[in-house]
C-alpha cells in the first residue's frame, strides 16, 4: 500500500506532523468559514461575481496646478497601490465620517460591538482631513521626486458606451491641499 505524505510524516516526526496538520486544518477551517486569519489564507481570487455597474469612478490628481498624475506611467504596482487604495479608503471615510471597518463591524455585530469599543482607537481610524492630505503630499513627493505645493483631486464618473469606449460622464472636486 502506498504511504501518503501525512502518514510518512507522522511516522517520521510527530512534532513536524503536528505543525503541518494544525496549519492545514486551520487553513481549511478558515476557508470553510470564509474568514481569513493570517497566516491561514483564503484564496478566493476573483471568485466573487462581478455585477455590471453603470459608472466607474476614477481619481484624477493634479499636482502643483499643472501636472496630471498618471500612475500607469513609470510607477510600479506597489506604488500605485499606495497612491490609490488609501485615497479610496479615505474617500469612504470622508463620505460617511467614520472608518468603513467600524460601520461594517457595527452592522455585523450589532450590540456585541460594544466589546470592541475599548479597542476602537487602537484598531481603526478617525477622520482627519489635514493628517491624511499631509501624508498624501509627502508620499506623492517621494514617489514623484518633485516638491509639491498644491494637490487637487477630482473624482471622474465614467461609463462605457455601446462600443465599449470609455466616456467621462461627470466630475466633481473631491479634495484640495495647498501649502500654507
Amino acid at each position, binding site marked *: 500500500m502506498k504511504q501518503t505524505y501525512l502518514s510518512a510524516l507522522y511516522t517520521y516526526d510527530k512534532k513536524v506532523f503536528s505543525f503541518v496538520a494544525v496549519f492545514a486544518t486551520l487553513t481549511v477551517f478558515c476557508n470553510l468559514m470564509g474568514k481569513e486569519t*493570517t*497566516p491561514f489564507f483564503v484564496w*478566493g481570487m476573483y471568485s466573487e461575481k462581478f455585477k455590471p455597474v453603470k459608472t466607474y469612478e476614477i481619481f484624477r490628481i493634479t499636482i502643483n496646478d499643472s501636472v496630471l498624475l498618471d500612475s500607469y506611467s513609470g510607477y510600479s504596482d506597489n506604488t500605485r497601490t499606495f497612491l490609490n487604495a488609501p485615497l479610496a479608503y479615505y474617500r469612504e471615510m470622508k463620505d460617511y465620517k467614520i472608518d468603513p471597518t467600524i460601520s461594517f463591524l457595527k452592522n455585523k455585530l450589532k450590540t456585541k460591538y460594544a466589546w470592541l469599543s475599548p479597542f476602537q482607537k*487602537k484598531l481603526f481610524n478617525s477622520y482627519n482631513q489635514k493628517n491624511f492630505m499631509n501624508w498624501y503630499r509627502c508620499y506623492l513627493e517621494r514617489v514623484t521626486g518633485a516638491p509639491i505645493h498644491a494637490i487637487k483631486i477630482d473624482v471622474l464618473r465614467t461609463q462605457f458606451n455601446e462600443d465599449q469606449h470609455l466616456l467621462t460622464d461627470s466630475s466633481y472636486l473631491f479634495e484640495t491641499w495647498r501649502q500654507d
Partner: protein
Amino acid sequence: METGLNQVKNPFTSMERRGMCRLVFLFIFFSLAYSYYSGTLLHQLCFPVLKFPYVDPTYWAIHLLKIPEWLTQNFWPAFGFDAVLVATCLLCIFFPDRRWLIAVFFILYFFYFISFNSYSTLHTHSKIGILMMPVPFIVFRNKSFTFLWEGMRYFTLFVYADAFLWKLFRNTFMNWEQGGLIIKANLTPYLYFHPSSFQTSFYTWLLQHDHVAGWLFNAGMLMEASFLIGFFTKKFDKYLFVFSILLPAGFICFADAFFFELTILSLTLINFRAYRGNIGLSPR
C-alpha cells in the same frame, strides 16, 4: 498523495538544501529591491496615517501591540528595520546554513507583511509566497526540511486549487460577463489615461467581444483546477509550473494585479533532484 516514502528514502542533501535556500533568498532579495524601487519599504512610507487591520484577528493583535505604528511613525526605527530586513536576506544567501538568520528574517518579514498590507489598506496576497517560503529552511534535519518543502508544494497546489473551488462553489464560471467586468473594474483608470495605446485597443476589443474575455477567465479557472491533480501525482508538475507562471501573468494583464512575488511558490514544483550533479547541487 504517493510521495510520502520519497521523503524518507531520498531526502535533500545539505548541498541541495543550500542551493535551494540561495535560490529562494535571491528571489526574496529581488522582491525587496522591487519594494525599495516602489517606495514601499517602511522608511519610505512617510509615516502613514490610515491603517487597515480589517477583520483579521492577527492584524488586530499586532496593531494592539502597536508594532506597525512604532515601525512606521519614526524614521530611524523604520530605516533600521528595513536595513536589518535586507541585510538578513543577503546574509541568508551567503550563509544558508545559519538557520537563526532565516528565523530572524521570517519574523521581520512577518511584521513587514502586516505593515505593508495594513497601511496600503489592501490585504494583498501577492507577498504570501515570500512570507511562507523561508519556513522549511528553519528546521535542523534535512529530512524535516524535505518534508516541509514537500508541504510547501502542497501549499502551492492548494493556493490555486482553492481559487478554483471558490469559483466553482460561487458559480462564477457561469457568469460569462465576469472576464469583461474584471477588466472594467480594475483597468478603467488605465483606459482613461492611455486612450490610444495598443493595450487599450486590445482591452476595448475584448470588451466588445466579452465572450472571449469570458473564455479567457474560464481557461484560467481550468488551469487552477488542474492543480488538484498535483495532490495525487507529481507527473504533471512541469505543466503546473508553467500554469503557476501563466496565472499571475493573467492577473496582471486582465486585473492589473502584479502577483510576481507569488511565483516564488512555483519553485516547489521544480524537481531539484533531477539536477543532482549540476548547478553546484552535487549528490551526497
